[in-house]
């Protein structure tokens, strides 16, 4: 039952899920490490939720090998369930019960639940614990969902878009909750559309496009983020107009100046580039370069590039192989 030493809490090889001709997931590989917060990113309909639901044991797979906490989720074992916490994408409604009654009720199914009061406080519903759960606002109902998902003190938590519909303050509170479990050595799988959320919480992530993992690894190195050039830009002041640029570090690539009068230089050595630009500007009597920016590629830039690169995630019908081989020869 216990995860074997060295085995990852989640290990997926060649996962496939088809609905007739539609291949929602096609040959997906994934390893999620012990104790990490792992993000699953990807556009709508890319197969994220299908994948997560297969890992949660609520959807049957068509093929491939899946191990979650050392078990096949399709077995749906009770002792396995006791170690898994799930916050599904849709918000539940628990009619005619108060917040406290709902959490108490779900706690009753677990061998080692967290104290109910603590869970309610953790999700920020402390003031509302006597409220009828159907009278909660959308954001509060979402927090109750989270409470129901974590009350069993799980070793592995699946959060499927947990902060959708939450205001910024509530989102930060939800993040604290994720960190709480992460600090206690628990593993979290987070599905989200918010890249800032992934960046704030996760060390590693995978991007799923058209039912496959197109990128997986530390967020800091995502999509060759370290390889993508940094852009140094500034508005050309009158004093510098018409002057020739100084000799720039190797690899620096100035783009033609457009109508906005902004000079953009792509570089892998922004510090060296500035070291060349600053004395040059000084000589022309410019002490401050107007609108100077050093723009490192954000996760969003990298993510959007990835999605574009692997586009056509919408058609995964019978002739997918053809599309892919065409893409390969292009």
């Amino acid at each position, binding site marked *: 039952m216990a995860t074997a030493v060295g085995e990852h809490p989640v290990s997926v090889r060649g996962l496939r899920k088809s609905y007739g001709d539609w291949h929602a997931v096609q040959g997906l590989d994934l390893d999620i490490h012990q104790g990490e917060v792992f993000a699953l990113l990807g556009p709508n309909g890319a197969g994220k939720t299908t994948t997560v639901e297969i890992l949660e044991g609520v959807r049957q797979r068509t093929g491939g090998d899946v191990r979650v906490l050392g078990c096949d989720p399709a077995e749906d074992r009770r002792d396995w369930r006791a170690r898994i916490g799930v916050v599904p994408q849709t918000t539940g*409604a628990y009619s*005619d019960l108060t917040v406290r009654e709902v959490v108490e009720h779900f706690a009753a*199914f677990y*061998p080692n639940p967290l104290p109910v009061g603590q869970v309610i406080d953790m999700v920020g519903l402390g003031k509302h614990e006597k409220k009828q759960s159907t009278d909660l606002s959308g954001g509060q109902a979402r927090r109750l969902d989270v409470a129901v998902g974590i009350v069993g003190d799980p070793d592995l938590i699946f959060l499927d878009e947990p902060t959708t519909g939450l205001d910024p303050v509530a989102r930060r509170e939800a993040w604290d909750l994720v960190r709480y479990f992460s600090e206690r050595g628990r593993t979290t799988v987070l599905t989200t559309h918010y890249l800032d959320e992934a960046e704030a919480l996760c060390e590693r992530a995978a991007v799923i496009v058209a039912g496959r993992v197109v990128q997986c690894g530390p967020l800091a190195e995502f999509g060759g983020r370290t390889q993508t050039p940094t852009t140094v830009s500034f508005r050309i002041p009158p004093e510098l107009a018409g002057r020739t640029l100084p000799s720039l570090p190797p690899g620096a690539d100035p783009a033609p100046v457009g109508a906005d009068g902004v000079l953009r230089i792509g570089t892998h050595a922004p510090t060296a580039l500035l070291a060349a630009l600053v004395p040059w500007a000084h000589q022309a009597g410019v002490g401050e370069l107007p609108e100077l920016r050093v723009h490192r590629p954000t996760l969003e830039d990298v993510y959007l590039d990835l999605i574009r690169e692997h586009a056509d995630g919408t058609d995964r019908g019978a002739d997918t192989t053809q599309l892919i081989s065409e893409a390969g020869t292009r």
Partner: protein
Amino acid sequence: MTLTQPSTTAPVTGTPRAARHTGRLPGIWRAGAARSKVELRAFFRNKQSLVFTLMFPVILLVVFGSIFSGKVAGTDTDLKQVFMAGIIAAGVMSTSFSGLAINIAIERDTGTVRRLAMTPMPKSAYFVGKLVRVIVTTALEAVLLIGIALALFGLPLPSTPERWFTLGWDLALGTVACAMAGAAYSALIPNSRSAAAIVTPVFMVLQFISGVFFPFGQLPAWMQTVAAFFPVKWMAQGFRSVFLPDSFTAVEPAGNWELGHIAMVLVAWSLAGLVLTAFSFRWRGPRVR
């Protein structure tokens, strides 16, 4: 100012695994008790289920009990009494069949079923809770109906211990048969909005063809035949044997109360409903939100 680099690895302090897995996984008793508690709480707090499920037969009893008069042709028995025996069967069907089918459809729609399936709850605990809900509400319904019939319309209480015994088993078997049928029938309900529309016609039609409002012997033969396939007809017949004089069997199609038959049909419906529920109940899937 001196710049320092933050350390890249923070020490992770997790609770030792061995220390955590000491509690025992709650079994069917604890889980079933937790489900039952929530079921009863929710039933009595929900005005819709209280009015629609519990009070509807009571209203029918009061209204029709005040309208019906005269004797059933060929007998010395008041039509009112026949109706009162029948309405108990309708009450059982209301709380156990209609109430349960609608309740399950709603829980499938609002995420309760889906969330319960994601906990280590033994799956049978859900049905234990439903059965407790149905038994408690049906018992209450029967007490309400018999009490009102007694107080307002002079329905005589069962006169012999045998009749009390028949009342007991007819109620119990009828409840289980209708509950199992309701749980199975809920598979036909696409979503909670259409639940009442899909359940109520069955409830109404069965009442009319099963001898609740009209003496069963006066119904057209084909209608009697159709009704004989369903539990309400048999339940109502059982309640007539409890509350009406034995001389009334003169107008019963079989000429006697057929107690053995009644028990057999109700047990058969219970088993069929159980099997159908086992095959049709879904913990997940497109309809389970």
